[in-house]
């Protein structure tokens, strides 16, 4: 058998065709941007307990809370009641405020109550694995 000589090209060459996707490339999804995590009024808070499982918040979940957001009827808020932090559902009723903490019935918040809205819960992040 005789050897076959194959030419060796010593210089490099751009391999392949340009990607058809090049003209349509979008930037990658940035969760920090989507959840507004670096906004001045956004804070992260951890929840312990499963009272809000039906609201989609599992034990150990991380809540993204916006302190500057205005609460709306039916939203979840982080609040301070009698010096303690709570998560609760906020309701407006007849010009007043009602708060539902977990399984309990909503309670009316009087002007003399030691109550303060800390922030509105915008997202809950549940770790599933």
């Amino acid at each position, binding site marked *: 058998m005789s050897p076959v000589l194959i030419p060796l090209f010593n210089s490099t060459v751009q391999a392949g065709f340009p990607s058809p996707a090049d003209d349509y490339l979008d930037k990658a999804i940035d969760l920090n941007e989507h959840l507004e995590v670096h906004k*001045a*009024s956004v*804070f*992260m*808070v*951890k*929840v*312990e*307990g*499963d*009272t*809000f499982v039906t609201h989609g*918040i599992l034990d150990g979940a*991380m809540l993204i809370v916006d*302190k*500057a957001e205005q609460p709306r009827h039916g939203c979840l808020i*982080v609040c*301070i009641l009698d*010096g*303690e*932090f*709570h*998560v609760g559902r906020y309701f407006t009723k007849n010009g007043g405020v009602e708060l539902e*903490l*977990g399984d309990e019935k909503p309670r009316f918040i009087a002007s003399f109550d030691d109550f*303060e809205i*800390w922030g509105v819960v915008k997202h809950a992040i549940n770790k599933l694995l």
Partner: protein
Amino acid sequence: MIALVDCNNFYASCERVFNARLRHQPVVILSNNDGCIIARSAEAKALGFKMGDPYFIVKPKIKQHNVQVFSSNYALYGDMSRRVTEVLRRYARDVEVYSIDESFLDLKGCYGVASRVDMGLPSGVAKNNCRVASGVAGGVALANYGLAIRQAVLSATGIPTSVGLAPTKALAKLANRLAKQSGEPVCTIKTNLDIKEALAQTNINDVWGIGGQYVKLLRSNGIATALDFVQLPDDFVKKHLTIQGVRLAHELRGLPCAELEVQPSPKKAICTARSFGQFTTNYGLVKEALSNYVANAAEKLRKQGCLAGALNVFVETNLHSKQDEQYFNSKTVKLPASTDDTAELIGVAHRVFDQLYKEGIRYAKCGVILKEFTPKQQFQETLFDDRNRPKHQGLMETMDKLNSRYGRNTLQLAAQGFNRKDWDMQRNMLSPKYTSNLDELLTIKV
């Protein structure tokens, strides 16, 4: 118009955002190593605790009044300060972050538009040409703008602030002080009458920019208030208080002289020095602590884009101790080539330290000062330099990138040791890093 916004009892306020039970209790914050009081809540002030009170001396009084004590949680305070500043930027053309809890705002163009809107006038007018009616309407609009700033910061961060508004920085500082004194959140100085009244109400001791020696001098010349001061002829002020004094006088009269410092000026020397958590005679421990301080200083040096031409190391014992042998020593060496390389600087620092270390001495503190800076681009090669600089440059860049991404000291030199607790400062009453550590988030039980 300039606004001076400062946070009320900043450190205590930061702690209160995340711990509601502190809101009506007296709170004090301690300095590095839990040494002395550096911040107090209003209640603690009322109980008589002073700035600088050593903790071990006031501890009995603290227990007696059930005062809540915290070590300085700089990670938290720094982050809260960043948030406050971000809110302020929305309300000003420029912001000068004067300190961790105080900022100057340049309101040129901003407040004018806002007040036209307040008064129901069309807002589509060129910003700089807004002429707001002076007198009551103008004054009220300005005050409302100050209140809007305060409300925005409070709602976004939970930090209460006081706002002083005036035509110059010095007057804004005055206005801020008057606001605090009167218990009002906002104070405006707008008209000439406002300026005169504010100056008359301000004691010469309390004027920002006039220090102790100058106060003595002025008092001996019959100057008692800021008003007296601005009535002095410029020649007199220039002679006794230098040109800075003249600028201050002009500013207090309502003529802006000082620009907002939007970029901090680059440092000419960088010092990192700390007291140890406990005194030690151990050569290895002090050397390790020193290595860490050098690494810290070098990191700051690189951030500034400079090279250091000289390095100073110092060691000292506890100056307050009566029974310990007192020892202070320091030495400065010129570096063979200007550098910003941590490894190289640690090597030099070690050699200097070996000359300073003395057996049997109980060391309380050590530190390093980097000096004689040159800009990085102006690096001069020397004839006898045998170091592979490009290679070490790459190493430093990589290290800085990793530490910036994954946290302080993710990557460090072996000389820095593995257990910071051996010499790191004591901070026994640190609150959680609520905003910078996922394991230390505010936790709510539901």
